[in-house]
């Protein structure tokens, strides 16, 4: 087997706050291979963004990586010095963010920001960098790319801005692209454009993509593999088919049931009761147990481990497969 582009093992990221330690990411294991797309789903606050920022080495201040390894192309980058990390960041691992409206610097032209990204990693003249920038804008299919180079972010629509972000991320031809909810803020029609674009670009370059979202529709659209997170932990992992056709964890199931579907008529949605626990008051045992209709005393006392059910389908539930416990 080839070495995964990214392999995360036991990653734990902690925020030290006045209310106590917050384990935003708690012992997460993941892997993504070349040319494949890993989607991470989960509700707000479950640690998706922090996970991706941990990989980038950009955990915001009170936080730090407390444990675990992050192998990028076989090399552990978890303990790298800031300077070394900078050579990887934006170069081999690129990232795009959720809010295209605010993720670009409003006071610099689009071209400047792309050129800056290129010249941070490649010793090229500004002219050549500009040509490369134009090239990458063309790649993301922005209409009239020459003109856009000298425009400011506020002159672009949300979709175009997100394209610029992608162009910027791809300008150094990274091997791994992390996209943190790249389409959430966009309209459906634009969302479709962006997802198609990402898929096409991946086919072209063969990069690995880690895409974070809370929309199962998006997952279905683009993922090869899926990891479902709940309260800092991965509760289920598998191929996209596994997750959609054979969801094992009650939380994954709940997510499926909560989603109204266009294709099917239901009178009443299956809602998950209650809400995500606050990060500094996590329940004993399985973190989902207070909201889980299947929970029993074991669930309330013991944390389930992520275990393989099938080849490549892992779930962290004492009750999996559910039918056995029904």
């Amino acid at each position: 087997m080839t070495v995964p582009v990214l392999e995360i093992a036991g990653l734990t990221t902690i925020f030290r706050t006045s209310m106590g330690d917050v384990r935003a990411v708690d012992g997460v294991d993941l892997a993504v291979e070349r040319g494949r797309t890993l989607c991470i789903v989960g509700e707000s606050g479950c640690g998706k963004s922090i996970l991706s920022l941990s990989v980038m080495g950009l955990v915001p201040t009170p936080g730090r990586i407390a444990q675990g390894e992050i192998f990028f192309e076989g090399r552990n980058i978890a303990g790298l010095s800031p300077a070394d990390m900078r050579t990887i960041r934006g170069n081999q691992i690129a990232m795009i963010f959720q809010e295209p409206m605010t993720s670009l610097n409003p006071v610099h032209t689009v071209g400047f920001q792309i050129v800056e990204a290129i010249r941070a990693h490649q010793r090229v003249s500004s002219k050549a960098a500009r040509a490369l920038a134009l090239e990458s804008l063309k790649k993301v299919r922005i209409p009239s790319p020459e003109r856009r180079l000298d425009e400011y972010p506020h002159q672009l629509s949300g979709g175009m801005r997100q394209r610029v972000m992608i162009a910027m991320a791809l300008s150094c031809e990274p091997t791994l692209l992390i996209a943190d909810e790249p389409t959430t803020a966009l309209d459906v029609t634009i969302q479709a454009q962006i997802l198609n674009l990402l898929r096409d670009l991946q086919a072209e370059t063969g990069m690995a993509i880690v895409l974070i979202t809370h929309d199962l529709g998006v997952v279905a659209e683009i993922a090869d593999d899926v990891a479902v997170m709940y309260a800092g932990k991965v509760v289920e992992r598998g191929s996209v088919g596994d997750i959609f056709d054979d969801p094992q964890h009650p939380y994954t199931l709940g997510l499926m049931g909560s989603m109204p579907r266009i294709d099917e008529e239901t009178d009443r949605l299956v809602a998950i009761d209650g809400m995500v626990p606050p990060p500094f008051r996590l329940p004993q045992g399985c973190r989902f147990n207070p909201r889980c209709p299947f929970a029993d005393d074991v669930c309330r006392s013991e944390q389930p481990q992520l275990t393989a059910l099938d080849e490549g389908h892992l779930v962290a539930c004492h009750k999996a497969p559910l039918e056995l416990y029904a």
Partner: protein
Amino acid sequence: MTMQPLLEARGLQKLFPITKGIFRRRVVAEVRAVDGVDFDIMPRETLAVVGESGCGKSTMARLAMRLIEPSAGTLRFEGEDITHAEKGDMRRLRRDMQIVFQDPYASLNPRMTVAEIIAEPMVVHGVGDGPSQRERVKELLRRVDLAPYHGQRYPHEFSGGQRQRIGVARALALSPKLIVCDEPVSALDVSIQAQIVNLLQDLQQEMGLSYLFISHGLAVVKHVADRVAVMYLGQIVEIGPKAAIYGNPRHPYTQALLAAAPQPDPSRRGQRHELAGDVPSPMNPPPGCRFHTRCPFVQERCRAEMPMLREMAGGQQAACHFAETIPVYAPALTMRAPSAKLKARLALYKERHVAAKSDAAATA
């Protein structure tokens, strides 16, 4: 059918002037936020409005509530013309129409307790006295699955879903006939979204409410609506019964929207055909059909002549010159049904869920 609509809008229009000058008196441009829309809302009915960001959905909600003055058109509530209703009349009408907002974090006054917030409509309208108001607040809290003691707390102590419940409770305080929901679930997590949607549906059944339900989530709209209006750049391009809109959309924009909506079905991957381009600015909308800049079926006529809403065979109305002739869009046909495993597990989950709930109710 001679049933009187609860709310009836005809040619409703709202222009926001862009002003300049020292005292901002000079109008240099207009945002045509809502540009001549007609719709009715029947009693006990949910009319859903879908459309992309900036197409004028919120403006329409505000117009329907008479929170802003329409630039043109008429608005009737239970047959009474309220387009230019005086302050006093409007106050009376406010008891019958309420609104629930999108942002659960911005829609509650952070300086008031939840009980005060919920009681406020009653105080403003002088309904009941102190004790009876307190009683009603408790009842409402219970109705939206919150505990009476929650009334003493401030909004910041609640999660987004809970806040949205508080917003719903406030809207219910005066037992209105119509509730305008401006994207009530868009800001919420999926699991919470389902809770709120269920709550709204329950309430409608119990209290015979009508909803003007605004959303950009096609799936949610399909789930809650009786009728659906699709908006594009300030205009309704297609309106009609849910089945017709989803089953046999006649306007190319509706079709595109449906096609673009992500489906939780990995097998359909790559079949989406995407709509090119962005929504034009409502400040200078394109002439003729407003959709012609993005329409895959555009003809010469579309660039010159603005199409009107026309009655279609499926029972809906569409505003497209070629509504009858454009290819049929049939997403449901290509859609694969959920796997048997998933179906079974969902049923199990539901069962357990209901059981757990009644358990909890019994112990409480």
